[in-house]
């Protein structure tokens, strides 16, 4: 700011002198112009300790942006702070991060991500701030239509989103996980191993006696400072197969926050997904009734959901009114208590499908889901069901020390949700913030409830409380306790598994940690493909990122193949479309072939950036450079 002002002041002096000479007009015409300055962009991402991969993408982009004459600020912040900055405050230029779903997802996931109706809302709904009617129309169309019409809409949607680049898909990572095979088996090979279904699908190794002894001995020594009591109870209280599944992570958020709707504290929501049951779950390519015993569509606009017999972790029964409450609450967490609705920062795309809800009886609820196809209707049922008696207390505006500020948020959104009360197969036991958290099996869950002696149960029709659930989840989880310990880096996490002190890693591993897995006999690498694609997100609200042509040039500065080869060392798949992990979703026009991006190919000059080509592309769309090659823009 100081330079232009002082310059103008100098010119004003000149002007005064010039005025006497009678040429004020010309000087004014010059002095009245603001000079242009170099464009500055800030890239936000997490440090290598938090995620070894994202920073690598950010570094490459930083180098390439700098090369074309942009002043880049590469900023590293913690995971919570990154999402707070991007999702809550929307105060960013670019960020590098991962999408939130690890299982291949339906195209309707893009609804929450890119629909303009969410532009003013904080959270995972439209964090980019893109407002395009063409996108909105296609998003609506893929909700309404079915069959080929829907495929066409989804193809067109992907092409439009790719053209507009509100975010640049970089690569779909392999979910690298170091696992210890001695105590649990059945780690999924084709998908993310540490996921809700992955963890529930685990089996205890049959001869776990000897292995279990060795294992729990190891568990004792790792944690002898704070966990002597808990491992004692794990071994003592419920003795049958009573093993503890020990996971290690670098992400400490699960040790301090268990709020399923807190966007900045959730990565994929795996553990809150085990605390809170949804009505239905996806299992591979099928949709499985979960808290819902069954659902049907009596009319085109309604879905009737019949609930299983279930209880909250505090003993209260799960009722239809809890389900109705959940949808009402996700729409507006203040339940009308605040002037403008405060919608949930997660699950917004899904929950927006349900327009009304009516309790038919204690165990049946009718949801109004207007005019959508089967796939999308089922998607509406995939939100965590929350207990009304807990969350209805949290609808007041958020306060600090009793004072109300204009945060436009509710206690529900900002609470850490201590002592979470869900209905899921795991329940909370204890946690030490920043260090560890312990969950235990919910003995009252329908997965572990014995089938035959159901005399006391009132649900007359269904005899088996697990009807409709694939047999491999019956009697699960296979562990009595789940303990997650926080370690400082991916390398120490892998070491911990290799030494038999933990059963699996949760957080992302960098390829550098992979060779360490091989040093131990029982430890091995499991790598399933994750749908949680790495992407560069743009704040479309800000100039010049508001210009789709400018974003397209930035997209062409990302050498996705090099990222996959060098940063991920091949443990990833480059892609152009966000749906690249979803089966048969990507049209030929967006398929990744021959190592180049089909829409926004890298400015490649034999493996490195073709700076001149990139600058020419920027000039072509109206940008200018100064004599030192700096990209100019209006100071903001």
């Amino acid at each position, binding site marked *: 700011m100081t330079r232009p002002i002082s310059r103008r002041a100098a010119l004003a002096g000149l002007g005064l002198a010039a005025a006497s000479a009678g040429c004020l007009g010309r000087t004014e015409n010059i002095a009245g112009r603001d000079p242009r300055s170099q464009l500055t962009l800030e890239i936000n991402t997490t440090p290598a300790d938090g995620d070894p991969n994202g920073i690598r993408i950010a570094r490459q982009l930083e180098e390439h942006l700098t090369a074309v004459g942009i002043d880049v*600020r*590469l900023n590293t912040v913690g995971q919570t702070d990154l999402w707070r900055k991007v999702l809550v405050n929307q105060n960013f230029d670019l960020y590098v991060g991962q999408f939130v779903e690890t299982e291949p997802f339906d195209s309707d996931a893009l609804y929450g991500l890119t629909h303009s109706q969410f532009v003013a809302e904080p959270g995972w709904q439209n964090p980019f701030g893109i407002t395009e009617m063409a996108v909105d129309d296609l998003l609506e169309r893929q909700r309404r239509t079915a069959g080929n019409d829907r495929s066409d809409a989804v193809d067109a949607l992907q092409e439009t989103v790719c053209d507009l680049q509100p975010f640049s898909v970089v690569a779909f990572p392999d979910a690298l996980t170091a696992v210890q095979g001695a105590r649990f088996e059945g780690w999924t090979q084709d998908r993310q191993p540490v996921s809700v279904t992955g963890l529930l699908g685990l089996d205890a190794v049959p001869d776990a006696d000897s292995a279990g002894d060795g294992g729990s001995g190891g568990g004792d020594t790792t944690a002898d400072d704070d966990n002597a009591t808990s491992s004692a109870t794990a071994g003592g209280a419920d003795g049958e197969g009573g093993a503890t599944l020990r996971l290690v992570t670098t992400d400490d958020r699960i040790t301090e926050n268990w709020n399923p709707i807190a966007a900045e504290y959730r990565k994929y929501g795996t553990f809150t997904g085990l605390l809170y049951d949804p009505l239905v779950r996806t299992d591979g390519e099928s949709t499985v009734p979960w808290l819902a015993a069954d659902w049907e569509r009596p009319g085109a606009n309604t879905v009737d959901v019949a609930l299983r017999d279930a209880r909250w972790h505090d003993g209260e029964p799960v009722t239809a009114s809890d389900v109705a409450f959940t949808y009402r609450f996700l729409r507006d967490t203040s339940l009308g208590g605040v002037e403008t609705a405060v919608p949930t920062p997660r699950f917004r795309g899904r929950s927006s499908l349900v327009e009304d809800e009516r309790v038919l009886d204690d165990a049946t609820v009718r949801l109004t889901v207007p005019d959508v196809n089967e796939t999308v209707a089922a998607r509406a049922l995939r939100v965590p069901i929350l207990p009304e008696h807990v969350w209805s207390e949290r609808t007041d505006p958020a306060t600090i020390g009793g004072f109300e500020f204009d945060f436009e948020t509710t206690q529900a959104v900002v609470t850490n949700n201590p002592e979470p009360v869900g209905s899921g197969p795991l329940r909370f036991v204890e946690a030490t913030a920043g260090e560890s958290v312990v969950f235990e099996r919910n003995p009252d869950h329908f997965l572990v409830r014995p089938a035959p002696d159901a005399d006391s149960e009132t649900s007359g029709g269904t005899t088996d409380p697990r009807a409709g659930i694939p047999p491999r989840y019956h009697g699960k989880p296979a562990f009595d306790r789940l303990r997650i310990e926080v370690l400082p880096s991916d390398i120490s996490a892998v070491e911990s598994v290799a030494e038999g002190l933990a059963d699996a890693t949760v957080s992302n591993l960098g390829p550098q940690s992979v060779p360490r897995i091989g040093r131990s006999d029982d430890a091995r690498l499991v790598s399933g493909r994750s749908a949680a694609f790495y992407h560069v997100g743009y704040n479309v609200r800000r100039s010049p990122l508001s210009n789709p042509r400018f974003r397209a040039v930035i997209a062409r500065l990302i050498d996705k193949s090099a990222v996959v080869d060098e940063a991920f060392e091949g443990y990833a798949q480059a892609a152009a479309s966000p749906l690249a992990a979803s089966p048969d979703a990507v049209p030929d026009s967006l398929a990744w072939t021959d190592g180049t991006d089909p829409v926004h190919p890298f400015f490649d000059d034999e493996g490195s950036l073709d700076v001149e080509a990139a600058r020419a592309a920027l000039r072509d769309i109206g940008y200018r450079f100064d004599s030192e090659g700096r990209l100019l823009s209006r100071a903001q």
Partner: protein
Amino acid sequence: MSPFLSVLSSVVAWVGAMLAAASVAVIGPARLRETWDGLRGRIWDARRAVALVCVVLLASAVGRPALLDVSRLFGIQATALIYGLEGGFVAWVQATFASPALTAYFSRVYVYGYAFLVAFPAIAYLALPRTADLRRLLVAYALNYGIGLVLYTLVFAHGPRNVMPDMVTPLLFTNQPDVILLASEVNQNSNVFPSLHTSLSVTVGTFAVLTRDEYPLWTAVAVPLSLSVVIATMYLGIHWLTDVVAGFALAFGCVVLAYRLVEPRDAAAEASDAGEGRRSGSEPAAED
């Protein structure tokens, strides 16, 4: 034994052995015996400085988590600034000099050498008949820690290994993964500005130069060792050059302040009684 305890006991054992050897070599058996007799009087004489160090260390241990939150939310986000300022200097250091032998040397210096470097002067100056140097040293330690804590809170930044993992290898942690457990126990990866490893080492080195008449041998050991620690912070990819420069400034500032604050009162209080109890000085373990 858990990895954390095993690395901790290894550090304690090695540093203890080095302290014992250095005490004999640098201070000499005769003076050590003398020190033993006058121990209680000297500690009593330096009680305020000792208390100050204890208070600062305690405040650091208790207040750090809260201050870290404050730093995350309200601190100056300086990573981009520092990186923009010096770019790939640390990467250049690694690319130019890194070799397995140097990595082994600097890893040991960073953990064991540093702990020894910070602990030994407390013993050495305790062995001097006058406590002025001891008091100055302790006051300088306390100032380093105190000011360092304030700066940690004001400035939120990650180190080079976290920002340029493609160019800067976290050598310490890839070669001695156990050590990261110890390091993360006493430090956060967002506390890099200034480098307290640098400032405390340089403080010790400066004192060693100032007291070269008393302990010429120690000066010859401490100066190269402290410079090794300084280089190690960058060589291992933990600190930026900016952190190191700030560490130097902090060290010199603290030494000057310590000399201003601590008057070398005359032999009045130097008289000593026979005393019991051993004190090995303040002993922060691996610490940035």
